């Protein structure tokens, strides 16, 4: 099974360690508790999956810190990348 790593307990995204297809189950590792999540979009290796729903305009959290904001409502299991999130501090991608 493909794995995805959660770096901090506060994170709402995990980094996927293989190429995940739509409908594929992914094992969430990195914290003491191991669980699974189903990918609802295709996610390339090294990219992020939402492990909770993220409201439009809400913070995307990795490393326990805000790495950007959601441009749209992001559903749990969805690919989180520059098409649906943006920087707050640096170059505006959209």
């Amino acid at each position, binding site marked *: 099974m493909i*794995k995805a790593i959660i770096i901090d307990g506060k994170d709402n995204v995990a980094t996927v360690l293989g190429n995940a297809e739509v409908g594929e189950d992914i094992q969430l590792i990195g914290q003491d508790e191991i669980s699974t999540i189903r990918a609802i979009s295709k996610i390339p290796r090294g990219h992020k999956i939402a492990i909770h729903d993220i409201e439009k305009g809400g913070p995307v959290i990795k490393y326990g810190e805000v790495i950007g904001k959601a441009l749209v409502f992001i559903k749990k299991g969805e690919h989180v990348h520059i098409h649906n999130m943006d920087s707050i*501090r640096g170059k505006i991608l959209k």
Partner: protein
Amino acid sequence: MIDYFFGYERENGCGVRNHVLVIPTVSCSEFTVKKMVSEASQYFSSYDGGIKALNNPYGCGQTGKDLDQTTRTLINIGKNPNVSGVLVVALGCESVNYDKVADEISKVKNVEFLKIQDQGVTKTVDEGVRLLKKLSDEAKKMNRKKCGVENLSIALKCGGSDFTSGIASNPVVGKVSDMVVNMGGTTIIGEIPEFIGAEHLYAERAISQEVKTEIIDTVHKFEEKLKREAGVDFRGAQPSPGNITGGLTTIEEKSLGAIKKSGSSKVSGVLEYAQIPNKRGHFMMNTPGYDIESVSGMVAGGANLVLFTTGRGTPTGNPVAPVIKITANYETYKIMEDMIDFDCSSVIDGRETILKSSERLWELIIDVANGKPTKAEINRQDDFLIYRIGPTY
């Protein structure tokens, strides 16, 4: 958790190595230094203690703050607790105030001094060999004694990063940094350009409003210098298209991956390049990202051990402090096992948590502090470069 190691007690702390250091105060004396070291090293050349020479291609044609920084680096690397005794070799007419270099270091350890313009190359080499033998004999009399881990000052660095660095090896090192700070020791993080975009988050960890302002100012000044002198808008150009393809989204995410190796402890202060902190805790040092200049500055700032994470692999080492290299990329570890010390790819395949891996790394750190040679020490790789901040005249 082991909270002690067996080190060398010095006036200003405990060393994990017992080296004799030769410092050329200018590039003009480097060749003479190389000659005397190649003759004298037979007297003292173990991994634990040996004659080491600094690489110094500068020391003249320098002025102002740039000259101050080079001089400070030469003085403070000589004061590092991993050094037992120092031989300073000057030409005689360089910009660096060589008397000051020798005098300052002699406040905390044995220093000998030679000036090429007093006697020519041949006599300087002969005299240098004699003095190095004397300093080596003094060093050999030192024995390891029990020291608390508060005597560890650990430099934190990443280089040749890949996607495994931000999610595994840097967080593992970050946990170790927190352990060291909790036990009363010191950790130092450099590479200021890596903070751009996430400096506000790191600044939240400052112990005071003053330190918080200093963190933000240091990062912004570095950013402005890049814009002014190299014409590059770092914030606007990061993350690179390659980073984005690899999965990174924003500059916050990229910078946080690098800063993660500093853990989550309070930031006690901001240090100038090669400045020795006057208390213990976690510090930020004003160094560039360039591996060798950055590590050299932190070791001059008193770091007696270096943790270096890498994704793509690097053989780098330092003449004064052992450099422990860490990767979470299993392929990199397998291909370059002769230059990498610690494999934490177990974090990426789910066999180990970040915390468990950091505890395993801690055991290696104590072994290295007790004398176990690192791969860079076995390879005799002694990289050293001073960060220049002004033009050559």
